[in-house]
């Protein structure tokens, strides 16, 4: 099943700081909800193992994430996530645009579409959409919190 999602997060950081954060595997990777393990391959790629539970289907998903900055729009980037585990597959493409906001802050405008296959979708199906939305929202909320903490620490 395909699950479209979108949202806007206001972060207490400058657009440049925000962009740097979401482009950095070490930092954005740690914002994956229920993270159990993070392996950074290079400046643009990382693998995160996360704990997942949708209804009766519980286990771990190993997600390979690729960060691709938009070559023409410096404030935008794509995050491609490919996950597998529990006999299931998850493919998510998301797009992030960093825009300036009032008071020197920034806004993350994000859209994402997740396609889920396997028991996670067929058994967890009826619970999956809400769960996927919550998880993705949690991730962007975690980014906001991390930026805030970093900002506070830097001040």
């Amino acid at each position, binding site marked *: 099943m395909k699950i479209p999602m979108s949202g806007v997060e206001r972060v207490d950081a400058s657009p440049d700081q925000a962009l740097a954060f979401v482009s950095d595997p070490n930092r954005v990777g740690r914002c994956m909800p229920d993270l159990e393990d993070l392996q950074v391959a290079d400046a643009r790629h990382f693998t995160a193992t996360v704990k997942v539970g949708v209804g009766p289907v519980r286990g771990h998903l190993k997600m390979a994430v690729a960060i691709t900055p938009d070559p023409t729009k410096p404030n935008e980037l794509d995050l491609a996530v490919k996950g*597998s585990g529990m006999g299931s*597959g998850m493919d998510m493409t998301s797009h992030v645009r960093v825009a300036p906001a009032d008071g020197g802050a920034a806004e993350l405008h994000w859209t994402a579409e997740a396609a889920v296959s*396997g*028991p996670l979708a*067929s*058994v967890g199906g009826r619970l999956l959409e809400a769960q996927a939305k919550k998880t993705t929202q949690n991730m962007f909320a975690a980014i906001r919190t991390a930026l805030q903490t970093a900002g506070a620490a830097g001040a």
Partner: protein
Amino acid sequence: MAIEAPSAPVLGQALKRKEDPRFIQGQGRYLDDIRLTGMLYMSLVRSPYAHARLVKIDKQPALAVPGVLAVITGEDLAGLGLHWMPTLAGDKQMVLATGKVLFQYQEVAAVVAESRAAAYDGAAAVEVEYDALPVLVDAKHALDPGAPLLRDDREQKTNQIWHWESGDSMATAAAMAKAEVTVKQDVYFPRCHASPLETCGCIADMNKATGRLTLYVTSQAPHVYRTVLAMVAKLPEQMIRVVSPDVGGGFGVKVGVYPGYVVAVVASIVTGHPVKWVETRTEHLGSTAFARDYHMNVEIGATKQGRVQALRVHTLADHGAFDSQANPSKWPAGLFNICTGSYDFAAAFVDVDAVYTNKPPGGVSYRCSFRVTEASYLIERAMDVLAAELKMDPADLRRKNFIPPERFPYTTPLGWTYDSGNYPANFEKALGLIGYDDLRREQTERRARGELMGIGISSFTEIVGAGPSAQFDILGLKMFDSAEIRVHPTGKALARFGVRHQGQGHETTFAQIVGSELGLPAADVLVEEGDTDTAPYGLGTYGSRSTPVAGGAAALCARRIREKAKKIAAHLLECGEHDVEWADGKFRVAGAPERAVTMQDCAFAAYTNPPPGLEPGLEATYYYDPPNFTFPFGTYVAVVDIDPGTGEVKVRRFLAVDDCGVVINPMIVDGQIHGGLTEGFAIAFMQEIPYDSEGNCLASNFTEYLVPTAVETPHWETDRTTTPSPHHPIGAKGVGESPNVGSPSAFVNAVVDALSPLGVRHVDMPLTRERIWRVLREHGVVSA
């Protein structure tokens, strides 16, 4: 050999089943009950994607799991030339995926381990990388210009598998154009699954020292498996023994050869150990043969008085990712052109387009003779649509159009020759028993009070007993069946058959046939099936073919024994053979019937005192090639009440009056009908395997794919008429699938009848509460 009229002391009796004592004491021997020394367990890794490129398979994490001995992938099989196998429909199917996967739950890798748990752990640890491809789920888009091409392995670069036609399209078009009244209706028969209580499984045991492979497998057709295995694995056929132990229900799902079996054979060869593989329920529902998935469009042309003239049907058939199901090779849409049913049409034309989709392969396996269920459902539904158009009672419309009894044998415009039938007698018996006229009066009163009561009729004709060798074969194997009988010196007999029962009671009914032909009590005839080393070759049990084909073989084989015993009898009675008659279960001297010998006497003499010049012993084998199909029929009536608030349908009464020709064991016939009606009830009201847009199976276990419990299941009323088959050795026609074939239309006709005051002409199955509630809401009966 002359076919004599049978004397039938044990035929027609409700004998208790000979197979039951072991089952009621927990002593059945089903596949998973077998444990061999040194046996390993196999679990399959399956694709989560419905359509994806296979990028990489990493076996290492699985091999690191304690107890895991081997991981086998499609690439490994490719090295042996075993990554694809032929299907029983003449297509080919991947054994383990190479290159790409084509449906969710497709077999991708196999893990072999010392224990069941280690095999599961290992399968979960295999890491597979996929690249998702566009998914084709809806058959209606399979032939769109932009549709993804699924089977790039084929020469034909299209998702169309085949196009098939039957009948005279010009004559039908002309008759349709002239008809005073025409009706047209789209009818979908949803994708469902027979799902017997025992899933599929096997134990492959390759003995390296002898070079002999024994495959224990849940199979309805063990001989076909042996031949297919010989072809696929290129093993000499005499070195393969297929044993089908007690089978926990089949209903057609256990006819096909599944990839897991082939992989288990390879695993046994690779490891040198017996390897057991048993599906989980999810694997069973997600990958083994489904049934139906026919998108049909039907048109009937008729006179204003309701005399039908022309039938035209176009069908789009969703076969899934491979064309896998056993099908007579000259009949790609099986027996679907039985769709003129019990009615006398002057012209008819049918065409079927079969397409691939990213769904599991299958199509015919749910107590169905090769698409007869779709055909029967379609015509019975269409007759009601026509009755509604003509504002005529559906019973009267049927009466007007039945093929009259005097016209049998009757040849339909689509080419079948019905053997025998007396439709009006069967129909009137059913309507009388249920009190049809009173029910209609009651309905009028209830309607006046705003209640939703419906009466549905199905007066179906079936086609079973595939089939005559002139027309019917599977992969070239003619569809005869066989019997071998040995009468021992003490007058007890062993009878073996090429078919394989899965609950139908052959150990009892075939003993009754053989016993009645030989003058032996059924208790003295031991029936054995399922071991290819001992049973004569046969095509198996499905499509209600056991009684019409193997039952014919049983009778004729016994008569062959009787012919020989007659010579012995003449010797014992010291008279000429022409003076000996078979009467009341004994050989008697003509004109002096008190001078008689029994079959037991002849059997003893066959081994102790054979007539000079006669070969000793008393055995025979018979391969029976039926001259025609048999055509069972019946009238089913359903009475339903619909709760206008919730959409819940309550089946108040259901009567089945079947005509399956001569009955061998009435208790077993009634049992078959109860079971088949319960399946038809499930199909009508609760069973469907839907897929989401990504090709995820949304009914892969018994919490999503529903099997009725004793609570929902209606109480079944049954009765019979008897019109013998003129060509079958004992006049029997077969009954197993009639109730599944004939009942869905009765249920749907009843529900649509209840909703007809709202202007409803058709609702597709399954008629769940939600679906009916939505119909009621659309028509303002319930508010949103």
